[in-house]
Structures are given as C-alpha cells and as structure tokens.
C-alpha cells in the first residue's frame, strides 16, 4: 500500500518535469548522456562486483556485454543527438505549392523501461540512453532476479542523473503489476514472451505503444566445411555464441545447431576441444562461465536433462553443481524434437545438435517454428545464403558469425512475430522513444478555387487532372476556361 502512494506522487512529479519542457532541451539531454558515461567510469569496480554477485560474470565478459556496450551507445548518441532531433524535410508535390513539409521528432512523455536479469546493467542503461536522447522522463524497473545490480542502479542513478526526470523503482512482480496499472506514454520491455503478453495487454488499456524485446530459439545452421582452419573458426564462434554470453542465458545466444548428419561428428569434436580450451575440462575447474541465475532456473534446466530420452542424447558434459548453480557446457546429439529442450527456449548452457540429411532442410525446420530473434548461418555457399535470406524470417540474420550484429549501431535490433515488436540501438533507440510529428506549412497565397463547393463539371475535371498531377492537362483546362470566359464577356 505504501509503495502505491509513493508511486502516484513520483509519477506526478515526473510528468510535471516533462510538461515544464526541461527534458526537451538538447543541453539537458547531452548532460544526462555525459552523466551516464561518468556513472560507468566511476563505478566500473562496483558494476563488476554486482554482476559477479548476481551472475558470476567475468570482468572481460562484463566489459564486452555490459560496460562497453553502454559506453559505445552513450558516445554514439552524444555525437548524433542534435542531428537526430532536427526536423527531416519532406518532399511536397507541386500541386501543394507554395508549402513546406517536415517530420519533427518529439518525445512521448513519461516512459517505463522494464529490465531483464541477464544483462541487468546494459539492458537498463541502453534503453535509458534512447529514452533520454529522445527527451522523455523515465522510470526504470530493474529485475528482482538480479538484486545486486538492481540495488546498484537504484542507489547510483540518482547521484548522476537528474532525479526529477529519471527514477529507478525496484521490486518484483507485485511492483510491476502496480506500475502497469498506470498510464505511460511508452513502455519498453525486455524479457520473456509470456510476460511480454502481460505487458502488452496492460498497455492496451491506455493505448500505450510498446517495444518488446523478447527471445526465441535462435538456431545456428552450420554447413559442411572442409578447411580445418575454417571449421575451427566456426566452432569457436558457435562456442563463443552459446556459452560466452551469460552461459547461454541470452536472447541472442545460440539455442541449437542444425548440421548435416555426416558433418556432425567433426563439429562435435572441434566443439569439445574448444570447450576445454575456453572453459576447462571438468566441472570443478570451469572458468569464465557465468552461473545460472537462480535455483528456479537451475531446477528448470535440470528437469530438461531429466527426461531419459534427452539424457541419453548427451555426448559431452551434463554435470551439475547445485551449490554454485553451475552447469557444465553440455552437447546433446539429436534429442527428440518433441522434448522440452526442443520446444522451449533453453536459456542455458545446453546445446542440442540436430542432424539433417541435407543442410537445405534447415530452412523448413526453422520455418515450422516461431520466428526467432536471430538466425545464424555458417556457409560459403552463396546460393544457400540467398535461400536462407529469402525464405526464413527472424529479427536479424548473421552469416558466419554470432552475436556481433548486436554491436552494430547502424543495424536495428529487435524481433518479429513471437520474438518481439519494435527495435532499438543507435538511431533506432532515439526513434523508438519518439513520435514523428508531420508538419505541413501552407500560406494564404495562391488559392485553388476548384477545392470548394458549389461543385460543377469544371471543378470536377480540374480535380481529376490535379490528382494525377497531370499539370499539362490542368494548364489546358485552365486556358480553355479563360478563353471561354473571354468569349462569354465579349458577347
């Protein structure tokens, strides 16, 4: 009950800040972006500690996936925000002469950002960068499954950013429900598609537009390769894209592999070697791997492996350390397609390898399933690349690598179908938090009589030509009319 009272007051204040116009000023936006950079710079150690507590992330992984991402994003927005804020000129057909058209981006107002637990710093600050660049006031709701990071954000953000415009509200599902009862001008959600539906349904009551960054089973197609150095590169990238990001607990992490039956054993051998090289050889000596976020998800992953048909398909790994919530990198060969490991998003360090008679079957395999956030394909066959491009649909598609599309500021990042609605990163972040207002300027000069009733045949003809921008016939019509009038007056 107490939380609810504080919330009303808080939201009223944030709306007042927005109405005052302060957040629309480019100087304010740039100040806030610089403040985010300072926050990161001064607190790298604290961030490393919080992420270690919540997920056992290694500092290099933290820099790559959290700190570095935010810094890059903030710097990019700082250098571009003024350009993005400028109105875009719109072309105007001659018929509208004289007039001028433009599209002017403006902030929505008060926006709500829901953060996921797997990248609890970057998934809070990266959308925040977009919301601020666009001139909004913001409430951030970090995930309660990453409590150390949530507390870090709640205590640190008010020290650096404008507290009358940016607030952090901590809590679990109960707090999220209360937040969703209020009216927001935009909601940005990163998380599971089950909760995404709840958020969108709540938003529907107020006609609030949403961006939903969800997930899905991101497949990697590995075509048969002959050059061992290329197989090594592919295997490294697959391993890096599965176990590298938060031990597989990432929306764009590889979920499963599709490979030709004959090539599978080779790929698996390479993967085993690489796992040893990257992470270590047995459960006791594993390094550079995040842990599973909590007991609930650990139990979920264990139960996936408890299915005897699935357990029988394990070809590497499978060991569990319940005390430390660690699961060894595990490879499975052809688990049953109707088992949970192949019907639900895994979000963990288990890698099913599905074999096919012909790698081209991978396209149909993928199309029978919901559209994922990303599809990856390792191949040198240009024709096959084209097929994958034209015949599958996903949030994004990357050839011969994994995850790096996330780092391209010029590429939109978002899902389609079950993997999400909307997109962000770079200018797309600015756009996702902006309303593009069309503005048309006309003058009183030059009136078009035929626009107005009373209607007659001449006006109808005029409009017929005007609408197809047939200026030549228009001219003839007008001349004809002039001549007619001259005739009439001379009689």
């Amino acid at each position: 009950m107490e939380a609810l009272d504080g919330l009303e007051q808080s939201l009223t204040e944030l709306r007042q800040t927005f109405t005052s116009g302060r957040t629309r000023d480019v100087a304010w936006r740039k100040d806030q972006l610089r403040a985010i950079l300072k926050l990161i710079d001064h607190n790298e150690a604290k961030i490393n500690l919080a992420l270690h507590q919540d997920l056992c992330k290694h500092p290099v992984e933290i820099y790559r996936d959290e700190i570095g991402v935010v810094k890059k994003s903030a710097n990019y927005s700082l250098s571009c925000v003024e350009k993005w804020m400028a109105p875009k000129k719109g072309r105007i057909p001659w018929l509208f002469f004289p007039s001028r058209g433009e599209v002017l981006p403006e902030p929505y107002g008060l926006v709500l950002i829901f953060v996921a637990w797997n990248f609890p710093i970057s998934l809070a600050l990266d959308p925040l960068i977009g919301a601020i660049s666009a001139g909004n006031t913001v409430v951030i709701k970090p995930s309660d499954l990453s409590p150390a990071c949530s507390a870090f954000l709640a205590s640190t953000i008010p020290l650096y950013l404008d507290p009358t415009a940016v607030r952090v509200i901590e809590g679990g599902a109960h707090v999220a429900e209360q937040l969703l009862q209020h009216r927001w001008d935009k909601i940005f959600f990163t998380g599971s598609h089950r909760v995404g539906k709840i958020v969108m349904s709540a938003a529907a009551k107020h006609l609030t537009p949403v961006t939903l960054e969800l997930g899905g089973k991101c497949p990697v197609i590995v075509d048969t390769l002959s050059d061992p150095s290329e197989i090594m590169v592919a295997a490294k990238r697959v391993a890096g894209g599965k176990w590298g990001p938060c031990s597989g607990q990432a929306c764009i992490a590889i979920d499963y592999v599709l490979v030709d039956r004959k090539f599978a054993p080779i790929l698996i051998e390479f993967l085993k070697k690489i796992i040893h090289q990257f992470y270590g050889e047995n459960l006791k000596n594993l390094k550079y791997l995040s842990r599973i976020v909590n007991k609930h998800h650990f139990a979920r992953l264990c139960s996936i492996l408890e299915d005897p048909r699935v357990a029988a398909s394990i070809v590497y790994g499978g060991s569990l350390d319940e005390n430390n919530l660690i699961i060894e990198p595990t490879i499975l060969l052809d688990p049953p397609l109707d088992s949970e490991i192949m019907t639900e998003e895994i979000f963990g360090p288990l890698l099913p390898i599905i074999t096919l008679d012909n790698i081209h079957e991978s396209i149909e395999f993928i199309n029978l399933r919901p559209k994922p956030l990303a599809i990856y394909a390792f191949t040198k066959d240009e024709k096959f690349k084209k097929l994958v491009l034209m015949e599958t649909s996903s949030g994004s598609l990357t050839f011969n690598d994994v995850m790096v599309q996330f780092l391209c500021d010029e590429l939109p990042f978002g899902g389609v179908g079950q993997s999400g609605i909307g997109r962000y990163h770079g200018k797309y972040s600015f756009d996702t938090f902006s309303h593009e207002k069309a503005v048309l300027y006309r003058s009183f000069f030059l009136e078009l009589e035929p626009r107005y009733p009373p209607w007659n045949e001449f006006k109808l003809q005029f409009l017929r030509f005007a609408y197809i921008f047939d200026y030549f016939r228009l001219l003839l019509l007008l001349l004809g009319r002039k001549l007619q009038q001259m005739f009439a007056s001379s009689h």
Partner: protein
Amino acid sequence: MGSKDAKKEEAFDAEAARSLVNDLRGRFASGKTKSCEWRVSQLKAMLKFTNEHEKDIIDALRSDLSKPMVESFITEIAMLKASCEFTLKGLKRWMMPEKVKTSITTFPSSAEIVPEPLGVVLVISAWNYPFLLALDPVIGAIAAGNAVVLKPSEIAPATSSLLAKLVGEYMDSSAVKVVEGAIPETSALLEQKWDKIFYTGNGKVGRIVLAAAARFLTPVALELGGKCPVFVDSDVNVKVMARRVIAGKWGLNNGQACVSADHIITTKDFAPKLIDALKVELEKFYGNDPLKSEDLSRIVNSNHFARLAKLLDDDKVSGKIVLGGQIESKDLKIAPTILLDVPEDSLIMNEEIFGPLLPVITVDRLEDSFRSYNLKEKPLAAYLFTNKKKLKEEFVRNVSAGGLLINDIGLHLANPHLPFGGVGESGMGSYHGKFSFDTFSHKKPVLYRSFGGDASARYPPYAPWKLKLLKALLDGSIFGIIRALLGW
C-alpha cells in the same frame, strides 16, 4: 441460388476464421505474394476496378453517406488512385535492400537491411471514408508482400458489399479476401493470430483490438481520432481562412472525419469577424438552406444522428448557437452549426464531435492556449491559421498531435511524403506513401562476416591484453586497436 443463400446463412464464426487464416498462411508460405509481379498485378487490378466502376463507387457512397459526387471523387476515388500509382512507381525501389555502413568494431563485414513481408495481415476499416480507408491500407499490405483479409465497416453496407464484389472479381482471392459483417464476425477474426492488424476507427474499439493482438504479440497500427483543434489568429487573410475552415469541416463528410476541424480557438476580439466570414462563405458554398444542399453529406445513421442531437440538447449549449442548429431527422441532416463559447465541461467539448457542429472558443491570448492544450488528449491533427512566424514556431514546438498543418486543414493527408498517424489517444503507427509499405514490413538486418579476421580477444581464456583490445574495438578507435595489438 438456393445454395448461395445457404452459404450466406452460415455464420462466419471462429472456426471459419481459423480456417481462413490457415488457407492464407498456406498461400503466403508458397511464396506467391512475395513476388514483385504478383504485387504489381494486384495493385493494377485495384486501379482497374476503381476506374471501371467509378460510378458504382459513387453510388455506393451516396447510398451509405449521401456523399456528394465531387467529394466522393476527391476524397475517396482520386486519393485511392493516387496512392496506387505512387506505390506502383516506388515499389521496386522500396523492395530493394538498403546497404548499411559497418564500423571497425565488426571489421571485416558488410551489412544491409532487407524488407520482408510480415505474413498474413488483417485490415479493419471505418465507415466514414469506407472506400479509401478500406483499400489504402490494403495497398500497403500488398505492396509489402503480405496476404490480406479486409473487414470493411458494416455501417457503410453498400460500400462493404461493393468492395467484396470488386475484390473478389478482380484480385487474387486466394490471398486477398474480404470478410463482411459486424461485431460477431470482427470478434471471430480478432480471436485468430495475425502477423499485423491495421485498424481505423475509435479509441474504444482500438483498445479491444490492441488487447486481442496482445494475446499473440501481434503488432498493430491504430488510426484513431480525437478533437482536432483549429487555432485562428487575427493576422490572417480572413476570406481564405474561412473557406479552408469550411472545406476542412463540412467539406469533409460533413465533419465526420478523423482530421476534420473539431472546434476553433480564437481571441475574444477576433471571434465576431471570424464568425461573420464563416457565415458569408457558408452561404456561398451551400446556399441559404443548407439542409437542401446536394453538396453536403448526411449523418451516417440514426445512432450518430441521435448522438449529435443530444450534444445540442443541453440548454447551456443550444443557447450558444450563432448559426444553424436546424435538424431534419427524416433525412438524417443537420445544418452547419456554429456555437460560441459553450461551457468547457459540456459534452460537446469533451467528446470528439464527428459532425457538423463547430464550437468557437474564445481566449485572451492564443499562445497561452497552446500550453493548456498539451494537458488534453493528443488529437490526430492540430491546425493553426496565422501569418506570424513566432506563433507558428510556438505552435509547432508546443502542440503535440499526430500531425500539424499551418494555414489549411486536412491537406497533409494527401501528401504521400509525410507519415500519417496519431500519438497517444489518437493512435500508433503511421502510413501513406512508403510509410504504408514500411508499416506492413519487417526490416530485417543482415550482417555478412567472413571466416577471416577472427580476433582471439573475443574468446576465453581472458587476459588483460584481451580486455585492452576489446575496449579499443568497442570504442572504435584505430589507435587503441593498434596499441592493444602491439601490447602497449
């Protein structure tokens, strides 16, 4: 004949809707709608039937709305044809992937953004421009390569059945279908999973559509409405302003349009001059007995007629009528009516009017009213008539709406280079021109990398030098990268 009647009797229920969507999904999966040839053929077919059946369309609009022929031509037929032609001209270009720069962070790589269709989409249309608002979104859906179901409004039944007939005869009915009906049929459709829903109408039903879409995480575009205000300054060409206001109120389906002028805000001093100018021009346009004018649409049906009559029923409102107020319930006609300074809390000032009643509200200073308007629900459009540069700047900066138009009304609709859509209560998403193509597309980013150029810094075991290199790569700094590689 008997079996056709029997078919009509079969209710279009959830089962029928599911079966329809499955058929269309199969069609879409076959790849037919993705080809440029198919898209072009469908758009040309639409153009063909619009040209060949112009008279039928005008008759249907007259039957549904008593819409004057020239108005039907300008605002429905010509607009649709222009939209078709604009799309046909731009289609090949819009379908092409857009090359995108990549930075040193992912070197070596190349990237592009490839537009692809969403799949099977649903277009639900409105009754006031029943021809245009049904087919214009369908143009976008087809241009983007989707299979489409169109559900026209049952409140304009003649146009609805004409659309079903024309689309059925001229277009590829295995991928473009019309489902006629009312609430039961719409509900059955909304229970299905679509890849996009495009809805034109009011906020109440907009919420129902969005909630139904949320069940399947279906993206939506909602073109709603709102109370579009017209701010009028004294520094204007009074005659031109008056004519444009009239064209933007009673010339747009007799005020029954999402972008029509809802009410006017002007200064106390200027109001009498403004009202006089309106009176003079109104008489020129519609004669001195406007109820008999052939150039005005009627009110669409008795429900809306009763709704509008109720707005005038309030004594505090009817006492403020300065022109018009005559009603003819038999023909569902209401004369152009102007009211001066009705109370702020009256129904007419709190609901979208959507009819031929025009309240004029007076204020001391126009600029002050810009800010107070931002506390209200954002409308689909807001208008300002003035010659003053500073006033224009303040208006554009401070008033939020779907779109703004200075010194005219409604015209921005006709410009295919500007996005047309709402914000807040007036909607989400936009269309027209290429924006229609975009709204029905998924813009898929594609990154091409090679096997070469693999930085071991990406992979564990992690060492301090790897961290240095990563930092440099993410910063995009060439010097940083060189230094890190050299071990400095």
